[in-house]
């Protein structure tokens, strides 16, 4: 039913996905880290979320070019404002979806 070749593919994929997720959690939690590393890691979340988010908002993934007119970016502006004002995760998700649903009708 499930071929050996397919199993080999997903086991290989699973291993190389799991190891980078696992190694830091096992090794870094057992050591006291140098202060520069702790400080650097403290900046990582803001940096990584922005690095994931901004290209998704301002670039057209199909053409790999900047497009500030796409609904993803236009909707992000009021969504950002709402998040800053309310600090509500659930509210921001709902508002973002509503705006995006509306924007898709008009774009």
């Amino acid at each position, binding site marked *: 039913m499930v071929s050996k070749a397919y199993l080999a593919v997903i086991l290989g*994929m699973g291993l190389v996905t799991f190891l980078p997720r696992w190694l830091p*959690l096992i090794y870094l*939690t057992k050591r006291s880290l140098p202060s520069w590393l702790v400080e650097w*890691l403290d900046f990582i979340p*803001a940096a990584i979320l922005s*690095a994931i988010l901004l290209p998704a908002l301002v670039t057209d993934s199909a053409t790999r070019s900047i497009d500030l007119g796409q609904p993803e970016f236009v909707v992000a502006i009021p969504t*950002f404002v709402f998040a800053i004002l309310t600090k509500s*995760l659930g509210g921001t998700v709902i508002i973002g979806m509503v705006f*995006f649903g509306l924007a898709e009708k008009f774009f």
Partner: protein
Amino acid sequence: MNSKKDSGSGHSKKSVSRGMAAAWPICLGYMPIGLAFGVLAQKAGLSPLEIGLMSVVVFAGSSQFIAVSMLAAGASIFSIVATTFVVNLRHFLMSSALAVFLKNADRKKLSFFAYGVTDESFAVNLSKFRDSQWDLNSALVTNYTANFTWIITTMLGGIGGQFIPAHAFGIDYALIAMFICLLVFQIRGYIYVITAVIAGVIAVILSMLIPGNSYIVIASMTAAAIGVVLNKKIGSGEGR
């Protein structure tokens, strides 16, 4: 198992409900993506069982999409696994950032937790760990609730995803809106604003220049290093 039950008083019940409550934006966001993945995988010739197995063993959305299109194109095992490795390497950074909050935690639990580290669960758990209330048990529940949603929706997509109106109500924007709010949570001073802006600008530029998603790792490592240097220059304590 038993030790879990022994400590399973009100405390762990609370962990379960808190963990599930934190997971809902992730689950909402995974639904359309999971269904879309299932539809694509089914078109590439995978059975619902094969789709479910991949979601269980790998549990990493973007690399699963890439793997399925590579399978359909007849790529070799080595090239699929190597591509998966590169695409998912960013989780190394995320697990490292999470490790700061999990000093001396139980190794077994950490291993189970590691399995569920995705962009989305990382972002939610990291914000939660900053509130001192959050613990590894809640984080595990969040991860596995998201994991369960992913497995089920990818299989559903493979069974009959084309009949489910997956894109209604702006649901495609759920994860983006979640990331927007979680990014706002991470901004705890102007140096964080500068770091985030630098990371975003580098990421946008690199994403147009280099193939794949390695721009995420390069941009965030560089921007965080600049953040550390700026923090030193401006003087400790001010930006925080």
